[in-house]
Structures are given as C-alpha cells and as structure tokens.
C-alpha cells in the first residue's frame, strides 16, 4: 500500500514537471527545410489558414528549387496556442523557423528573448515601406527593434440586426453617438422585442482576452479623447490605477447585465459563448446588437461550415461611440497577428524569404480577403478589388484611423486577467463597481511590481 500512496502524487507531479520542462522530441534543423508553425482553427470546418499556407508553400517551393516548407499546425484555442508556442520557443530543438504571433503577447515573448529582431531583413525589403505606421509599431519591442511582420489587423464595432431594429421601431441606419444611445436602443429592444437578446458584450474570465479587449477596452478608450492612453502611461512607463474612467467602463458592463440587456449571465460566462454568438445567435436573429470584431464574416463565407451569405442584408454596422460623444466620436481597438522568426530558429534567412512570398501585394490581398482581415498595406487598402471584395471591409478599414493598439508590454496578460476578474465580479453581481475597481488596482500593483500611477 505504502509505495503506491507515495507514488500517485509523485506521478502527478512528475507529469506536471515534464509538461513544464517542455520535454519534446524533434531533431536539429535541415538547412533546406523551413518549418512554419501556425494556429489551426479548432473548428474543423474552418480551413482558411491551411488553404492559404498550402498555396504559399507551392509558390515558394516553385521559386526556390531544392527548398522545402514543412507546415506545423498547432490546433488549439488561443490561450493554449500561446502556451504551446512558448514551450516550443524555449529550445533550439523544438523552435520552428517561422511562427505566427499574436500582438497581444509579442512583447512578452520579445522580453523573454524568444524572437529575433528583423531590422536587418526589413532594411533590405522595399515592400516594408508600404506598411502603415501603426501596424509597424504593433510588433516593435521596447528596444525599438521590430520583431514581426503583421499580416493584417482587425477593428471592432457594433453589428446590429436590421430586422429586429425594424420591429423595435429603430432606424436601419442606426449610428449611436454616446454610450447612452447604445443602452437606450438596447432597452427599447428589450421592451418591444422581448424574445431577443438586446446586446452582447463579452465579459469575464471564460472568454479571456475577448472580454478585456472587445468590451472593456472598447469602453475605456472611449472615456478619453483619441490621444491619451487610459491604461498605460507611456511617459512614466507605469500602468494607470483604476479611477473614474475605469469605474465608468465597468458601470456600463454592470448596467448591461443588471438590467438584463445582455445574454443570461450564465450564458455570458459560458466558455463557448463566442461560438454561439457567431454560429447561432446572430445568424438566427436571436441577438440584436453585438459588440464584436471585423472578422465575423469569416465564419459565414462559403465553405466555412456555417454559410450565411445574406448577412450583409440582415446586419448593419455602426462605430462604437465615445462615452459622451466627445472627439473623435468613435473608438476601436486593434490587434492582429504577425509572422516572427524565433531566436533559436535554424533557418532564419529562408524563413524571411517565406515571409516575403506571403507578403507580395497579391498574396497579402488574397489573405485579407480570405480571413476577413483589415489591410495594413496601404497599396492594398487603396485597391478597389480589396475594398469591394466583401461588404463591411470599407467600414472596418475606415476605423483604422481612430483605432488603438493595446499596451502589449510583458505585464499586459496579467493586467488583462485582472480586468476580466473585475468584469466578472460586476457581471455576476458578486461585487460592486467600486469594490471591483479597488481589487483591480491591487491586482495591477501585484502584476506590475507596483509600477502603478494614480490619475
């Protein structure tokens, strides 16, 4: 008996330990093969990335005789993808030659020394001048060097169902000017079309970063004018403690769930709510307004598994307004992904050649259209073939002028978790706005080694 008893927790621990040390096989690299890691959709019917990369691989192998591309898909939800990737990047044995990095975590990975600065390559690559400045900044480390080539960005706004709006007596060209306009519309829908969810705003830890960025920061960045950052003070390099702006944004979330303007709280905190919004609630007309991202049509394209080509007739688009309608009137948050070369990559030169193939104007344009991405190359953004490729592209591309990138410094993921916790507290009604704000400030101090400033 005794040996078994001691063994079980030890085995559990050993399992944890082997995961932690990222023991993995894998041989050294073959100089003629580029290993490309990317995030494969967890939805088997969505093959957008796979199809696109297979096409690029064919082009690349044709243009570089004797060279081969090995695609290494990682099939996981966002948060697990990062974990897996970071474990791979730790060792030269497992590090691929090219990785797909979310700008959400790129600075964190740069600080860890996982990525290679690309400046020497970029200097010799004329196409780099075609990228817009904000996008270039998204993959810049605190050391001023660039660590990734963005393959597009995203913006966020309000999607609304015109049929539901008609039933509620609201205009089909709805353009709210303040937060109150949004809430008023939601209240009207609740009263006039009671079987429809008036407004969806992601909240709480189950949806992770989507809650922090898509809902909370869309609100928080709308409490100020376009120029200031309400989360991070660039001059002092300190994070901003929860104050009036934070409370206002949190109050909005509280109002939505307290007045039952959002989905049932138990649905809102279901980890699968994002899939339901896109696959069920919006297409079936069960949701009136969704605060969501530019990429939604990706799920409704032909061949996606949930085809809904009529979406552009049913859904209208409106920019998220600032709190009181103050300048610049609308707000958006942007993120996106970049292609980066790991510091421990075996074939960095060849990897950059692969990036160049992906980022020819034609290929870049193909990709933006295929994944409902927003162009970060000005030559594509101006091209009518891109603008007319899909309804909504122009709307979301125009939001780029008033968009914000997150302060994606190493502490950001922890800050994001603290935001999600504050949101979850007011959503369930467990904590008041004031309590949640003060817990946020405590969590923020803890996450950032007390690099916090009051404003």
């Amino acid at each position, binding site marked *: 008996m005794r040996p078994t008893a001691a063994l079980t927790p030890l085995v559990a621990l050993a399992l944890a330990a082997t995961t932690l040390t990222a023991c993995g096989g894998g041989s050294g690299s073959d100089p003629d093969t580029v290993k490309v890691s990317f995030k494969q959709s967890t939805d088997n019917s969505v093959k957008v990335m796979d199809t696109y990369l297979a096409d690029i691989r064919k082009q690349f192998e044709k243009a570089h005789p004797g060279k081969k591309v090995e695609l290494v898909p990682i099939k996981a939800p966002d948060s697990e993808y990062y974990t897996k990737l*970071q474990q791979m990047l730790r060792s030269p044995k497992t590090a691929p030659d090219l990785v797909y990095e979310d700008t959400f975590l790129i600075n964190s990975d740069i600080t860890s020394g996982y990525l290679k600065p690309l400046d020497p390559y970029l200097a010799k690559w004329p196409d780099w001048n075609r990228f817009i400045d904000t996008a270039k900044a998204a993959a810049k480390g605190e050391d001023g060097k660039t660590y990734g080539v963005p393959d597009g960005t995203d913006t966020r706004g309000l999607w609304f169902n015109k049929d539901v709006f008609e039933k509620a007596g609201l205009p089909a060209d709805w353009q709210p000017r303040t937060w109150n306009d949004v809430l008023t519309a939601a209240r009207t829908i609740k009263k006039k079309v009671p079987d429809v969810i008036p407004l969806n705003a992601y909240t709480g830890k189950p949806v992770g970063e989507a809650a922090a960025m898509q809902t909370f920061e869309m609100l928080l960045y709308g409490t100020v004018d376009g120029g200031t950052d309400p989360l991070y003070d660039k001059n002092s390099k300190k994070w901003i403690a929860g104050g009036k702006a934070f409370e206002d944004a949190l109050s909005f979330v509280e109002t939505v769930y307290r007045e039952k303007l959002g989905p049932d709280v138990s649905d809102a905190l279901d980890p699968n709510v994002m899939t339901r919004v896109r696959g069920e609630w919006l297409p079936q007309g069960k949701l009136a307004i969704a605060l969501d991202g530019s990429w939604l049509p990706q799920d409704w394209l032909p061949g996606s598994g949930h085809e809904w080509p009529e979406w552009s007739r049913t859904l209208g688009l409106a920019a998220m307004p600032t709190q009181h309608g103050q300048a610049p009137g609308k707000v958006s948050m942007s993120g996106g992904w970049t292609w980066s070369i790991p510091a421990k990559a075996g074939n960095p030169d060849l990897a950059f050649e692969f990036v160049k193939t992906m980022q020819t104007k034609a290929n870049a344009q193909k990709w933006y259209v295929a994944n409902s991405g927003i162009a970060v190359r000005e030559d594509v953004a101006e091209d009518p073939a891109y603008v007319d490729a899909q309804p909504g592209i122009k709307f979301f591309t125009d939001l780029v002028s008033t968009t914000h990138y997150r302060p994606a410094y190493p502490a950001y993921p922890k800050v994001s978790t603290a935001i999600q916790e504050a949101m979850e507290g007011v959503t369930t009604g467990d904590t008041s706005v004031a309590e949640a704000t003060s817990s946020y400030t405590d969590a923020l101090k803890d996450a950032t080694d007390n690099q916090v400033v009051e404003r």
Partner: protein
Amino acid sequence: MTATAPHPRLTKTPEDGHPAHGPRRPLRILPLTPAVVLLLLFLAGPIAYCVYIAFTDLQLTGQAEESFVGLDNFTRAFGDEAFLNAVWLTLVFTVVSSLIGQNTLGLALAVLMRRASKPVRTLTGGIVVTAWVLPEVVAGFLLYAFFRREGTLNAILDWLHLPSQNWLFTLPILAVSFANVWRGTAFSMLVYSAALNEIPREITEAAEVDGAGGRRRMWHITLPMIRRSIGTNLMLNTLQTLSVFGLIWVMTRGGPGGRSQTLPLFMYEQAFQNSLIGYGTAVALLLLLVGSLFSLIYLRLLRTEV
C-alpha cells in the same frame, strides 16, 4: 496491497546472506538497473527540477532570466485569496465527491449487487464501469450536457414541474462533485466487491444464526473485516480526486467567478495563463502536501488494525 506481500522476504535477505552468496549480489542488482535509471531520469529528475523552480520566479514568457526567490512563492500563495479559495474548494470537492460520494455509494452498490440477480448485477456493473472507463474529457462533456441550462437534468425537472436552473452557474462545485462521483464510483465498487467476496461465509452465517440483523452484521462484521480495503480505497480515491482537472475544466473552467476553481485549475491558471511557472509549481508542491496529509491520516487508520 500486493506491495506489502514481499516485505517479509526482503527484510530476511540480508540475514540469510551466506558468504557464498556474497559475490553474486551485485549481479543480482544488475537486472534492476535499467528500471532504476529510468525512474531517476523520468521521475526523480523532473521532480527535482520542479522543486527547484518552485523557489524561482521562472515565467513562461515576459522575462529574460529567472532568479532564485526563496520562499516568496509560498508566502505569496498564503496571502492570495484566490489560492485560499482554491484550497477550500479542493477540500469541499474531495470530501463531497470522494470521501462521501464515491466511497459510500461504491460500498452501497457492492453490497446491493451481492444480493441482486445476475442480469441486474451485470447491467448495473456495466453502466457503472462504462462511466469509469470513459476518458475524463468525454465524461466532462457528457455531464456538461446534463447540467447545462438546456440540459437533460432541467428537462427532467421541467417534466416534473419542478423549478429548473443553470446548475453549472448556481451550484458549480456541487455539479462537478456529482460528476466526479458519477465517474469514479465504479472503482470503489470494484474494490469493495472484491473485499466482500473475501469475507468467509461461515462468519456471516454464524452471526445470522446468533440472530444478528442486517444492520448489525454490516456494522460489526462486514465493516471491520473490510477495514483495510476501506483505507486503501479512501486513499486512492482521494489522490485521484485531488488531481481531477479535465472534468472541471470542461464543465466550468473553474468558474463562474472562481466558484469551482480547485487547486489543479488554480495551478494551471497561474502557470500557463498568467505564465507564472514558478508560482504554479509552488502551488503544485502545496497540492502534493495536501495529498500527503490525507495519506498520513489514512495510513494511521490502517495501522490501528493489526
């Protein structure tokens, strides 16, 4: 239990080590070497590394170099409300689902099945064992479907005109505890069935002749005689329950608001979502401590029986 059998022989070996056997001893150890090397490499190695990083501030990302921080991770844990919450929930989960649920239900099933007819026995046994052999994640999805708002449980309650609710939201820790009972009872049932079969028929019959009723026979004969199995079963169940992760992750992800976040989930969140590997590992060591505490209690329980 089988492990205790070789002990007397092992202790004897040095005594009867005649001089003639001496030179052969190193050779006898030889066949064991690969196993020992493998254990050292894959078990002791990672554990030692694990203990080491529990004392550092190692992160998965966001840090150039880790440094030794002594007991910081541990003091931090005890000042962390979320950690204390997780400890409390782990205890609730273990007591409700393992000690009370799996253990008693497994014993009850084993006793009842001895009296049941063969078809009933086969059917019940089949169902219970199926729940046990299902992968944790599959079981998690099944029970998620059972407890969710549009799920089976609420459909039954509706049909009975009883109020329904979202169990995963209102009573998450009880829902996951129930799931663990559902999944793990088979193990206890098998252990107890085997133990009950070991009780000599004559003793039970003698008690019956002496006029002892069912309840008295259970209390004075059956339970004392299977005491050893109870200890074994409690220990294995507890250790298994302490490390349950997939089931809870699939059903609730520890939510809402951390109301079903047991220690393994808390550890995962710290290590992989907040990328605090050092802190997460320290929590893992504390979980190990909780496991050994339970083990010690059960070992005492076993020792009193001679």
